[in-house]
């Protein structure tokens, strides 16, 4: 049996919270860095998968990236789009294509540049979304950007689970504790509860420090069956397909099955995972996913975070680069990049000793799409 495809190259740009760069320019830079990291050249690439943010800026990357990056004669070229679950889906797609013999060396790229000279990322998101359909009605009702939507989820979750709102603070502090040891993180300065509660409310109960910090940046990985790197051991997907109705909840499962499938394929259990890299655009999502993925009983995510298990030195190291909250928000690439760093033992001060297995969790929409990836060190 041939070897399982592995991630043999990783490249990323600087993660910038200031205006500068276009998504396509950043994507090319990350792609070239990934090839250099893998010791490959453009001519070795026969597959390109592109992920992009959902059109908050006009320069969204797409399949044109192949031309922009000077690639040619590809056997696989696609723009993958399932929102925040896209990165895991790209790796799954790359693996399938390699296994099927469609391509041998596939680069997966994501780039985003929401920060322009005209305004910060919050403003960019508040101004995007359009005036049509359900989103148009929501925007006409003051739901600008994605924070109010997750604030609604947080309020409901706290009410239903009887959770302590202080758990949101704990998640933010834990993410920052990891980020303080990550030179790539955009928010590294020490954070305590006092500073957290001094952070302005964006939409109750979420404060600015409950929200990820978008960046202009890009990341790319090279997937191949030849070469050394963390191996793709399992992938699981679940799309419960949202049907909002009276009597239903604001969360509706899917994550547990995605993780069960990924673990099943890898022949592992939750206890075999050395690091968890979860999609954490807002503190509430970390809490939801810990329960959704089955790392604790329903309603127990808050106490789990408070116990210190997720923090440096804890038994369940989670979002070890600071996550999207304090590290950088590059959608699904954030957890993937950190998983690769950990499995290559390149985490420096934040390295989890002996980390050999990692979960990369992706969510898309409003917990609409789940994609889980299990990686194992070479």
């Amino acid at each position: 049996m041939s070897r399982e495809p592995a991630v043999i190259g990783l490249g990323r740009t600087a993660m910038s919270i200031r205006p500068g760069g276009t998504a396509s320019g950043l994507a090319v830079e990350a792609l070239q860095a990934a090839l250099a990291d893998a010791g490959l050249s453009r001519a070795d690439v026969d597959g390109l998968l592109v992920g992009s943010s959902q059109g908050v800026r006009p320069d969204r990357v797409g399949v044109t990236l192949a031309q922009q990056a000077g690639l040619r004669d590809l056997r696989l070229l696609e723009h993958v789009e399932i929102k925040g679950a896209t990165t895991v889906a790209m790796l799954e797609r790359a693996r399938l294509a390699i296994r099927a013999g469609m391509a041998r060396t596939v680069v997966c790229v994501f780039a985003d540049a929401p920060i322009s000279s005209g305004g910060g990322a919050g403003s960019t998101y508040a101004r995007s979304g359009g005036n049509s359909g359900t989103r148009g009605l929501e925007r006409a009702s003051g739901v600008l950007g994605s924070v109010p939507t997750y604030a609604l989820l947080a309020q409901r979750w706290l009410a239903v689970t009887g959770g302590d709102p202080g758990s949101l603070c704990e998640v933010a502090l834990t993410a920052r504790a990891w980020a303080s040891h990550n030179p790539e993180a955009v928010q590294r300065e020490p954070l305590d509860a006092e500073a957290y509660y001094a952070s302005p409310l964006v939409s109750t109960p979420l404060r600015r420090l409950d929200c990820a910090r978008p960046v202009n940046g890009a990341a790319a990985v090279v997937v191949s069956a030849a070469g050394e790197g963390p191996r793709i051991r399992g992938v699981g997907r679940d799309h419960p397909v949202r049907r909002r109705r009276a009597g239903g909840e604001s969360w509706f499962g899917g994550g547990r099955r995605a993780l069960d499938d990924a673990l099943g394929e890898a022949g592992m259990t939750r206890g075999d995972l050395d690091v968890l890299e979860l999609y954490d655009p807002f503190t509430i999502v970390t809490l939801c996913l810990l329960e959704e993925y089955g790392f604790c009983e329903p309603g127990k995510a808050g106490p789990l975070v408070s116990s210190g298990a997720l923090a440096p030195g804890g038994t369940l190291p989670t979002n070890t680069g600071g996550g999207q909250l304090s590290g950088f928000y590059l959608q699904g690439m954030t957890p993937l990049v950190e998983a690769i760093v950990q499995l290559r033992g390149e985490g420096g001060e934040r390295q989890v000793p002996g980390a050999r297995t990692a979960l990369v969790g992706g969510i898309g929409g409003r917990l609409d799409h789940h994609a889980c990836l299990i990686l194992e060190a070479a």
Partner: protein
Amino acid sequence: MSVDWLLDDSLAPSIEDDVLGELYRGAARGELVLPFCATCELPLEPEQLVCDGCGAAGPVWRPVPLHGHVHTVTVVHRLERGLVRSTEPYPVADVELASGHRLVLTAVAPGAPPSIGDPVSIGFRHLGGVAVPAFEVSVAANAKESR
């Protein structure tokens, strides 16, 4: 034309050929019009073209009772310059309607936010000439509040 208490006219929904056209046309008449499965009566999401319950195609839109209760609620403090006219934080609620639908709406007028579970009635704001449904903390909830 009256000016909305909360938002700039540029956020008015598009009503030409919009999937929610029936809702906005109904709102202009003071009715809340929402989609149901023509066959099994299941309340549908506005974008749904096929019923997820029985599989029948072709939703029917019809007026629903103007009341429900709060599934969840937030108060938005970020007042995006140029888009938000209000100088004070404003409420946004996910409302479970008696019809079985759910809509994320703001309030008809400024005021204290409701709590989860509070009954609300549905009224309408006018944004850039488009009638948009909004919640109103119902008399029953006010009575509860004042006790």
